[in-house]
Each structure stands twice: as C-alpha cells, then as structure tokens.
C-alpha cells in the first residue's frame, strides 16, 4: 500500500510539478528569445509565439489539478468557515462527488474530440491540434484522482477515523 502511494506520488509530481515547471520554462524562454530575436536580429519567430501559447495552456491544465491536490483553489469561505466541521465535510464530499460525475460524463466526448482534432494542424508549427488539446483529458484524469482521494479522506474524517498528515507542498 505504501509503495503504491509512493509510486503514485512520484507520477503526480512528475506530471504536475516537474513537467509543468519545464513547460513553464519553455514558455518563458520562448517569450524572451522572441523579443531578443526581433529586437537584435529584426527577425520575428512565429513558431516560438505559437509554442509559448501552447505551453501556457499546458501549464494551466497541469497546475489546476496541483491546486486541487493542495486545496489552493480560490473559494468564498466566509460562510463555510462558520459551518460545523461535519457539515463542511458533507458539502465537500457532495460537491466533489458531483465534480467526479461531471468529469465522467464529459470524458468520452472530450477524448473523441481530441482524437478527431488530430487531423487538424496548427497554423505555424503544423503539429496536430490534439497535441494542444491532450492537456484537457490529462487534466480531467488528474482532477478525478485527486478529487477521489479527497472524497476518501473526507469520508474517513466524517466517520471519525484518522486521516494521514498532509504532505509538505513541493514549493515550500
């Protein structure tokens, strides 16, 4: 059980932390090199322009599940904080379940859409659109898994069972 937990943590870290950080660096360098190339060599680089946007989209959809994993999404919690702990847990479980149902409902249509978009090529890089859109199914899978883990923890807490200590976030 512990091994599975460690391996899954490594896989999540690889995608949401390390891969996302590398893609962010690509985004950053694309922008800087573009400015340099245009200003110094008077030669704009449209492929880098396109790559920077695609990198941005990938960072969003790898970063959003990471935010779910560490409960960093913005919420309006004035009322929530005043609720009894058990009511808080029930609302969290209910909405997380609803989110998982939605993720399941949309999964087939979005995978079909990503597969269909393979035929279409991007305007500059001429790579299949599905390479850009693939981040969305990955996002839904990651979100589904983190959500399910939180549902499990919240149910345990609701039943008065011990929950594991929260892990140290990788940015601390």
């Amino acid at each position, binding site marked *: 059980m512990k091994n599975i937990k460690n391996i899954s943590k490594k896989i999540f870290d690889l995608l*949401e*932390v390390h891969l*996302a*950080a590398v893609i*962010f*660096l690509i*985004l*950053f360098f694309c*922008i*800087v090199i*573009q*400015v340099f190339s245009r*200003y110094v060599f008077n030669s704009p680089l449209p492929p880098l*322009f396109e790559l*920077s*946007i695609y990198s*941005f*989209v990938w*960072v*969003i*959809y*790898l*970063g*959003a*599940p*990471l*935010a*779910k994993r*560490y409960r*960093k*999404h*913005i*919420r*309006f919690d*004035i*009322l*929530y*904080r005043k*609720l009894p702990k058990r009511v*808080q847990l029930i*609302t*969290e479980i209910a*909405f997380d379940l*609803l*989110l998982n149902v*939605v993720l399941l*409902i*949309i999964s087939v*249509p*979005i995978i079909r*859409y*990503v597969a269909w978009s393979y035929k279409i090529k991007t305007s500059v890089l001429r790579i299949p659109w599905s390479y*850009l*859109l693939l*981040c*969305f199914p990955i996002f839904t899978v990651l979100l589904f898994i983190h959500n399910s883990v939180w549902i499990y923890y919240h149910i345990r807490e609701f039943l008065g069972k011990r929950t594991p200590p929260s892990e140290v*976030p*990788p*940015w*601390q």
Partner: protein
Amino acid sequence: MAIIVWILVFAAVFAMGYPIALGMFISSALYLLLSHIDFSLLMDMMVIKFESMFILLAVPLFIFTAKVINAGKITDRVFDSAQKALGSLRGGFSYVNIVASIIFAGMSGSEIADVAGLGAVEIKAMKDAGYDGAFACSVTCASATIGPIIPPSIPMIIYSMLSGASVGYLFLGGFIPGFLLGGILMVVVYILSAKRNYPRGKKVPFRDLLRTLTKSFPALMAPVLLLYGIYGGVFTPTESAGVVAAYVIFLSLFVYRTLGLKEFYKVLIDTVLSTGYISFLIAGAFMLSYVVAREEIPVLITNGFISLGLTSSKWITLLSINILFLILGCFFDVSAIQLIIIPILLPLVKTMGIDLVHFGVITTFNLMIALDTPPYGETGFITAAISETPLHEVVKEMLLYFIPCEIAGLVIITYVPDFVLWLPRLAGYVG
C-alpha cells in the same frame, strides 16, 4: 431548465465555499448537458480560446516576476533605499513603506505579492522601530493597493482581455491614480505620525545614501526597463513581463546572488501552482461568459439598471457600479468579481458611453480596495498573520483611516476622468 440548474449549482458552490473555478466548471458542464450542447464546446471555450488571448501570457509571467523578486530579496534592496532616503522624517518608516510599494508596483502587478513579500520586510522594520502593529499592517495594506494600479498590473491585463481595451493605454491610465493614492496616504500618515508622535529614524549621511542607492540601482531599474520597453515600442506588454522576469532572475542569480538554483526551482513550482488556479478561473470565466451571453443576462441587468433609474447619466451609473463593487468586494475574491461581474456589466457600460480605459482603471482601483475591506480583506489576513497582530485591530485602523482615503481616491478618479485619461490621450489615445 438548464439556466435554473446553472444558477442554482453556481450559487450553491459559491455560498458553500467550494472552489469557484471548479464550481464554474461543474455548473457550465451541467448547463451544456441540459441544453443538449456538445461537450466539445467546453474545450473550445476553456482551451482553444487561449490561442487568441496572447495578452494573458503576461499573467503567469508577472506572477513569476513577483515571486522571483520576493524570493531573490530584491524587495529588501528597494526597502533599504527608501528607508535611507526617507527614514529620518517623523513617522519616516510609513513614508518608506508607501514609496517602496510604489517602486515595487513598477515591477510587479500583484497586491498580494506586495503584501506577502515587501510587506513582511516593512512590518518587521516598523515594529522594531516602535510603531504599533495595527498601524504598520494598515499602512502596508493600503500602500500595497497601489501595486496593480501603477503598471504593470495583472487585473488590468485580465480587464483588457474581457473588454478589448488596450493594455498600453490602461497601464498609462493607472499612473496618475496610483501616485494620487500614494499622495493621499502620505497625508494621512503625516497627520497620524504627528498626532501619535511616531519616532524619527537616524539621519543617514549623504555618502551612505549614495552607496545604498548605487547598490540598489540595478533593482530600481526594473520598472524603467519595463516602461521603456513598452512605450519605446521594443516589446508588447505581454513580452515585457517575460523581459522583466529575465532581468530580475539575472539580478537574483548572478548580480546579488540571493537566489540559489534550489530556491529558483521552488519559485517555478509555486508559479505553476498560482498559474493553475488563477488561469483556470479565467478558463471557467470564458465558459461562464458563454452562458451569460447565450442567456442574454446583460440585457436583464441593463433593464434592471434602467428600471431602478440608474441610467439617467453615466455618472450615476458609475456611482452605482462603484457601490456595487465595493459591497461585493467586502465578501468575494477580486478575481472572481472581475471575471464574473465585468462581462455582465460591459454592455451597459458601452451603452452609457463610459470610456473603457477609464472604466478599467476605476474597476481596478475599486477591486484593490476590496482586498482591504473586511470581512474578506485578504491583505488584512496576511499582514495580521505576519505581524501577529489581532486582526480586529488591523481592521479598525483600516476602517478608520485608510479605507476612507482609498474611497476618496476612487471618487476623484471616477468624477475627474482626466486623472485617468490625460496620460493615455497624451500618448495618442482617442477616447
């Protein structure tokens, strides 16, 4: 049926403290399901739409810049320079706080980054010098408000994306309001310092001041680089975010050597996280805007304004919008207000002939006040936690002295549009 479910789910998510972005996602997906619209629209709105929104690339890059500035302790140098220059006045640290925030505002576009980074340095220095915690926190919160008003500004970039107004002119429009607010805060600080007999710092010899300024010179050049780049036509506002990030990374890694590679990697991860939840909220807002437009909700809102008699002149409309934003700002997160309310109000604003640059600066100013206003004033939470000052003391000080001043600034820029539009017009803006 679909719209009722959409409203109910979204309202429930909002009220019960579930993440807003995920709430937008759930309610919009259910709306599509009940309206028999293909789910591919979700990806069109939440993924593909970013392809035409190059301006939004500035958001992660300015987040990155702010985090590097804080992690690389560039804030310490900015604070040190301001302290040497102004610390000897009565209540000098308060002026230092405001001036440092104005300089920081020229590098970062985020009020929270100002409070959490520079604020921590400022509050500690002020408390060590004998200022009470509530005052130190309140000055820090109020001065941080200037951050996104003076360019660069993340909220202005998001507003530009929503409204189509030029980011360059929005940035120019924020200059005078930012300095105006700084001036108003200095007057309040002057009066309070005299009344409470706050201490004077030691006068620094000119040679020491010069030495500090020389050391801080590269850091102080960041805003100059940004403004020269944008208005000198070298790069776009989006690209400016990347160039300034590269500059502050270079300073932190190689000039000041205050940032190791390990810390730099942590900054990268932190940026990915912030980009994830902020930009996903924007993606959710794209979906929300689709539903709002499809259901013609702006028409309903406009009719509501008309029936309440709030459209008799644009000044009354602006007054009512300002009041609405101030009230919403007390309870909701500013990015959520911006992404949800502005698209609904924009058709009314355009119908009333309100200038989009003027409106953008007003809403940015208003939303920054929202970060200070209780009960949901994030800056108060952060500074109270940093300084271990009871939150109610910070809130009391803010409500008594600083929030009224911020609102005074808002009223001035609302009713004297030249405070906002003079500089953009000088640069060729026709509006």
